[in-house]
């Protein structure tokens, strides 16, 4: 899971799936079958953390870094290319959280998906991008983010329109959730080496 100096960020993700952990196994509402908002609050939609399924396995979702560990902020920080990383230590830096569950998202469903929104009564469009954003503890970390028509990350902008937009994007994510483990394969080494 850890990044290596020889690795490079992956730019072509469209054939793969993302997996995200949930706090509990009953993350879907029983009446509607939709994702409970408490599992993914709209505030998290600005930059939704996920993992690239393949070399990253479902059991890897159990890894939880301890907030009280000395290097917590280092381990969750983004990896800088061409660098090696520290090796985290079991129990000191992380533990296994076995009661987590998970869901899947097909990258090609999300990447490029357009959501219309209003800002000061003008109409705009937000574009979804799935980005490979490795951290110092997880090379397979990915982010689902939303960009405006000028390619500017909307999470970096300010304004009340963000409430509306990220509510919309939560609906989008909810629509594309897959519960069943999809057919998947190891990530081709050519993509990151």
């Amino acid at each position: 899971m850890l990044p290596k100096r020889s690795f490079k960020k992956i730019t072509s993700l469209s054939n793969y799936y993302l997996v995200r952990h949930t706090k509990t196994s009953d993350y879907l509402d029983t009446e509607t079958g939709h994702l409970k908002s408490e599992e993914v609050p709209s505030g998290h939609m600005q930059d939704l953390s996920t993992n690239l399924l393949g070399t990253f396995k479902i059991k890897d979702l159990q890894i939880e870094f301890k907030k009280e560990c000395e290097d917590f902020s280092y381990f969750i920080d983004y990896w800088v290319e061409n660098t090696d990383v520290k090796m985290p230590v079991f129990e000191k830096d992380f533990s296994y959280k076995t009661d987590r569950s998970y869901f899947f998202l097909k990258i090609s469903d999300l990447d490029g998906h357009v959501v219309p929104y209003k800002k000061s009564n003008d109409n705009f469009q937000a574009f979804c991008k799935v980005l490979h954003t490795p951290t110092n503890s997880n090379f397979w970390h990915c982010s689902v983010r939303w960009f405006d028509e000028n390619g500017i990350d909307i999470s970096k902008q300010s304004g009340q329109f963000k409430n509306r937009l990220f509510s919309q994007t939560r609906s989008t994510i909810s629509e594309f959730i897959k519960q069943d483990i999809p057919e998947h394969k190891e990530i081709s080494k050519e993509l990151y080496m």
Partner: protein
Amino acid sequence: MIAADIPQTFDNLERDYFRNTISIAKVSCASKEEVWKDNSILNSKYPVQIKNNDIFEEEIIHYLNESKIHNKAISLRKKFDSLYSLKSNFLKGIDYETIEFCVLAVISNIVECDPHGVSIEITEDKSILFTAKCTDFNLYIDLFFENEIDDYAETVINIYKDKKNIYSFGGNFSDTIKDFKQNFIQKGQQA
């Protein structure tokens, strides 16, 4: 058969009462007062009785349809009340009457879409999210109560059909609900 499902007695007065008060399901929140006037139906236990056996079938079907809407609205109202008793702290500082007004207006519009299931959530970011699963589409309505300059609550409505967003509208509460009513519900639930 339909006749077997009808209560035994139903006099004109009660029928008129029923029809007038069920209009909560038809309110497009033109004004807060209008909703307040009508929302008594959601609190009441209306004792429907039919006294005449010669009611035309058309009226019977109309009655049954309205009953269905009525019962769903009451059920959702109860669901919200139960949730609010647990999570009212997430909406701390927001006037309850405003919350109730918005919730009832949203419920009245949702039931017109004849949902199979509805989830209601109160979230930590001072919002109430309604998700309804209907035959041909999924409906999401989000109310945000933190924006003081809006009339009641900033509102976002999204509808997905076959995973495609076929309706999306956001803004102040009244405009958003009215647009939803006029451009989706009244046009046969077509975007």
